[in-house]
């Protein structure tokens, strides 16, 4: 092996490099093709069809008037407003898991069992959680039983039945469904925290709150950012199952979010063009959140 002439390795390395690149292209191609065909092309089509009158069969180009029509449609604004109001649940969807993770991190007796219990609902489909939530908020559901048991027997709620309250019930359900995932994220973050730091601060006489504010929280910032992005993306793109099962978007349009409006406009009203346009709007919204996420990953590497 050592007797190979001086020139040979160089030439060989060159062809090797080329062969390696070729192998790289061949290996990456199936994944690229799949993503282009089923994600890339449909986005391009979204743009085209958003300028057309389209029933799924034939599309007629009508230009920007679809856009002006869509933006004059009160349903779109209602949906955007509903998404906006649901954003108010995000602090709770992050804060509660943060508290739970900190509690778990104290490692009281049986914390492993508690951890498994807290994570368990994450395994269940949001279809099923929606079914359970619907039962919870229903007129003859658990919530009213609790209220009556507390002594307010003359007071009953029917959150899902009223336009002004249904979104609130959806928001509560959303917070519940996010608790497991976010707790898991924060707990992972806490596990990477060097305990000697906290110990040192404690010896220096820092109180619990100060240790949490000045050591724990900054350490968790990256995990909190990730949880924030994941929660917001879920809020815009994962509520479909909950809405489909709990309210069907109603009463009226009270719980219709943008993603649900796409489904209603396309499949219930057969207006594929406007639905494609709404899809594009959703794409832009999640795209903005996605750029934040990429920054997050990028800043770390």
């Amino acid at each position, binding site marked *: 092996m050592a007797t190979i002439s001086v020139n040979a390795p160089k030439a060989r390395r060159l062809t090797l490099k080329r062969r390696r690149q070729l*192998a*790289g292209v061949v*290996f*990456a191609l199936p*994944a*690229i093709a*799949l*993503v282009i065909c089923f994600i*890339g092309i*449909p*986005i391009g089509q*979204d743009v085209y*069809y958003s300028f057309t009158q389209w029933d799924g069969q034939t599309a007629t180009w009508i230009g920007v008037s679809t856009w002006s029509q869509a933006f004059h449609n009160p349903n779109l604004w209602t949906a955007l407003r509903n998404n906006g109001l649901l954003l108010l649940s995000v602090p709770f969807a992050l804060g509660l898991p943060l508290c*739970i993770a900190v*509690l778990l991190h104290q490692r*009281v007796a049986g*914390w492993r069992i*508690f951890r*498994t*219990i*807290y*994570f*368990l609902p*994450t*395994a*269940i*489909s949001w*279809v099923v*959680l*929606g*079914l*359970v939530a*619907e039962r*919870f908020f229903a007129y003859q559901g658990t919530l009213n039983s609790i209220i009556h048991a507390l002594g307010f027997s003359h007071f009953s709620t029917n959150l899902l039945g009223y336009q002004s309250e249904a979104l609130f019930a959806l928001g509560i359900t959303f917070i*519940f469904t996010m*608790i497991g*995932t976010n707790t*898991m*994220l924060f707990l*992972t973050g806490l596990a990477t925290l060097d305990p000697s730091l906290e110990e040192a601060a404690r010896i220096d006489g820092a109180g619990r709150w100060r240790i949490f504010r000045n050591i724990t929280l900054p350490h968790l910032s990256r*995990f909190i950012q990730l949880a924030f992005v994941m929660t917001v*993306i879920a809020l815009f*793109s994962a509520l479909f*199952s909950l809405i489909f*099962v709990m309210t*069907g978007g109603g009463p009226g349009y009270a719980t219709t979010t943008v993603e649900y409006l*796409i*489904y209603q406009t*396309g499949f219930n009203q057969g207006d594929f063009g406007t639905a*494609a346009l709404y*899809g594009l709007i*959703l*794409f832009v919204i*999640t*795209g903005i*959140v*996605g750029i934040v996420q*990429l920054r997050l*990953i990028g800043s*770390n590497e």
Partner: protein
Amino acid sequence: MGPVKKPRRLGRWVLFVIMMFVAVIMLYPFWVMIYTSLKSEGQFLAGSGFSWVSWSSLSSVIPIGQEVLSSTIVCASSILLILIVGLPAGFAFSKLRFRMSTGIFLVMVSAMMVPLQAILMTEYVNVSRLHLTGGYTAAVLVYASLGTPFSVFLFSTYFRGVPDELIEAGIVDGLGYFGVLWRLVVPIALPAIATVTVLQFIQIWDDLLVGLFFIQNTSDRPITVGLAVLAAGRTTSIPELMAGSIISALPAMLVYVGFQRYLVKGLTMGIDR
């Protein structure tokens, strides 16, 4: 030391009580499902009594066996496809860099952020025109394309840790790039494969949207679609719906409890290093 210990022990008790309280809330869905499924519709409406009626009549209301089978087929095929295209691509983007591979990789990773709803209409029309909605084909392709960006990201991050010498040694030994991938890289990547499999299993098993729109025949319905359609119809008895929910929840829960650490690894991939 003495006086310090006492409040601490009290604090532990308070903590324990709070944690029990949270546990009750988190277990609430399971309690509702089990409790409600053990009633007949009449007992449910009356609010008292228990029976097995809803369980024994379940299969006549929901084709539960068929639906679980559908879910299993769709899950297994999608995950297999994700691994088949994801493993080589992850290997290529981390170890077999080619021209523009970094740029393509970034675009691929950003595709992770595209929600299906954003492309629902065009996707639906496309697969219908290609006549793919008949069996499971369309659903499997859509699930696979949605799961591929994340798996490529995860695999390439993982493969970055594989030493170049190992790959070169394999090439010198005449394995070829495919041989290197299959015989040397894949065996090292088993934890990453497990992470992708577990994450995708739970995602796909629990999903509603794809099954609802991309599987045309009602006889091919996955379990989540079966439950959601019945629930939205509001004519089915709730105890039976809950019994079906338990069956749909069990597989994902078992996978979840058994493979928790792979899940955690996958979720924090990219920031936890």
